[in-house]
């Protein structure tokens, strides 16, 4: 739909920040997050967010500490982590690609975009490329419905996305992987 006549202009879409998850955060950092947040009313979600923000995921090894601090069973903590789509128990790829699957994006070619992205990355939803460069996740609405179809790469949002635009923004990531 975009630029039917003109070749796609990549220059508009380069220059952006990447979403680097900090690696090597220590046990002490997790303890610090737990200690800081455990006295909030309903502290579990804030703690899980804190850990995932820091590490990119919630390692199984952190669950006993969380459970102990909140006086919960490990099963209860695991149950909460597994309930919410956003929380993950495995490390994500270096860059996470979120594709919006919702109706507005579908009305503007979202399914074709989805097929293109899966093909280009060679993975399905909830998978990570073998080289650890990319994870692919569906999202049910980024709230960018007036700029459909939309996606998020790392922290950066993109609206009116075409296959060409996706290829443009993914190239530098591929090169650095």
């Amino acid at each position, binding site marked *: 739909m975009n630029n039917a006549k003109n070749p796609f202009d990549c220059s508009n879409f380069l220059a952006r920040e990447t979403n680097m998850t900090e690696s090597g955060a220590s046990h002490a950092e997790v303890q610090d997050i737990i200690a800081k947040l455990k006295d909030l009313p309903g502290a579990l979600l804030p703690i899980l967010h804190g850990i995932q923000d820091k590490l990119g995921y919630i390692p199984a090894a952190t669950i006993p500490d969380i459970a102990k601090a909140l006086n919960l069973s490990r099963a209860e903590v695991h149950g909460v982590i597994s309930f919410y789509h*956003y929380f993950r128990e495995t490390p994500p790829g270096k860059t996470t690609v979120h594709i919006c699957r919702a109706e507005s994006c579908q009305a503007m070619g979202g399914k074709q975009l989805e097929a293109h992205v899966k093909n280009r990355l060679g993975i399905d939803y909830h998978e990570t490329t073998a080289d650890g460069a990319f994870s692919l996740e569906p999202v049910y609405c980024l709230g960018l419905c007036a700029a459909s179809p939309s996606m998020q790469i790392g922290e950066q949002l*993109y609206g009116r996305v075409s296959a060409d635009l996706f290829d443009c923004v993914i190239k530098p990531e591929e090169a650095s992987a």
Partner: protein
Amino acid sequence: MIHKIYIPGDAAAVSLGADRVAAAVVQEAVKRGIQIELVRNGSRGLFWLEPLVEVAVTKGRMAYGPVQAKDVAGLFDADFLNGGNHSLALGLIEELPYLKAQQRLTFARVGITDPVSLDDYLAHEGYRGLKNALAMSGADIVKQVTDSGLRGRGGAAFPTGIKWNTVLNTPSEQKYIICNADEGDSGTYSDRMVMEGDPFVLIEGMTIAGIAVGATQGYIYLRVEYPHAHKALNAAISKAYEAGYLGDNILGSGKKFDLEVRLGAGAYICGEETSLMESLEGKRGLVRFKPPLPAISGLFGKPTIVNNVISLASVPIILDKGGNYYRDYGMGRSRGTLPLQLAGNIKHPGLVEIAFGMTLRELLYDFGGGSASGHPIKAVQVGGPLGAFLPESQFDTPLDYEAFAAIWAVLGHGGVIAFDDTVDMAEMARYSMEFCKIESCGKCTPCRIGSTRGVEVISDIIEGRDLAKNVPLLRDLCNTLLNGSLCALGGMTPYPVLSALNHFPQDFGIAGQADAA
């Protein structure tokens, strides 16, 4: 002279390149030695024109859009800082028909002010509602909200004043105000626009609610997919604390209200109020049985108001100008304005806040300009993923809660998604079931099992297997979901599924069969 330039910091504008445009404008101004003041405002909601750049000139604000970074040097050459002519020039923003035809009450400041400037908020009639409220009794505040006719804008359309009154009259040493900012309905973005574009109006609305019913703690339960809104809310909340609009002694009144943002974690069901409260308590977001009502036993078992962002953001103008002022807009039992959100395959997608009563057709064509693809609009889904699909024959329905209920449809949160004639409605019906399957909390059987079976049955129908058996089976299953589910997720998934089946039987291979028979 310092030139004032507005470039939206709204997430949708940013997704279209607004940050790059802002950086290019700053760079170009430095290069040319021109002094500018750059404001990252909210979006005006005219998204086909984003990134939309505005420049303050003597007669108003001149608009240019859609602007890309590569256009910036040319705009400077054309003297856009003084309203110079350029191929992207749109004229004075306030004169654009799309904006001029609206009645912006809740969105009065969005796109105009600097979202995180308290001074700007105060200069544009901000906190006048709170000042009035501080001089009133709780019962009088609730009466104003009741008189306004405001109904819950999250989708259920329950009268806000009645909910507040229940909390007011339920004695408790602790009460809570929760803002449901888990705007998970696809095709909707008005909550996001308010939180990013005018966060103080939400904070003011929640503070008024707290003072009205005697609640001292508020939570904004925000979906994690909205990091821009998170940043804006936190910035505004900390400014409100510094200036005494939140905290132990609001504006010296001796009244207390604390406010905190909590993040969700990608579960659609947490937009359901009881599931939301479970999540806030740190649990799996399982739906609770009602009764007890949240207004009597809500968060941590205490009386709790749970209102949508738009409901709460409409409270300040009601307390400023009076319940009657707000009630004078609208039709029938739908009073005031509804911020509609045009999305999908539409030429002019955007936010349209207008009094209830306009027809869907006027919205789609007068505002929306028809489809983006130029094909006919085949179907419109109104009210999010649990809303019915409407065929062209229903486009003359007025946007009014009761008129929509009469045709077995809902207005919901005001999302309107257009589809052109390339859409396959059987695929859309299957997607609706699949969505229910993915997002079901699992507590009740009709939703948990029924959605999985629903996907299978619709797949069978799509593949043409035994339609005489499978179509009645799908209807029967929908009936079970409709009547047997604990909450609206299972209870309303039949709306899109059955409306697709009823209005577009040919897409399910049924009309073709009937013709052949």
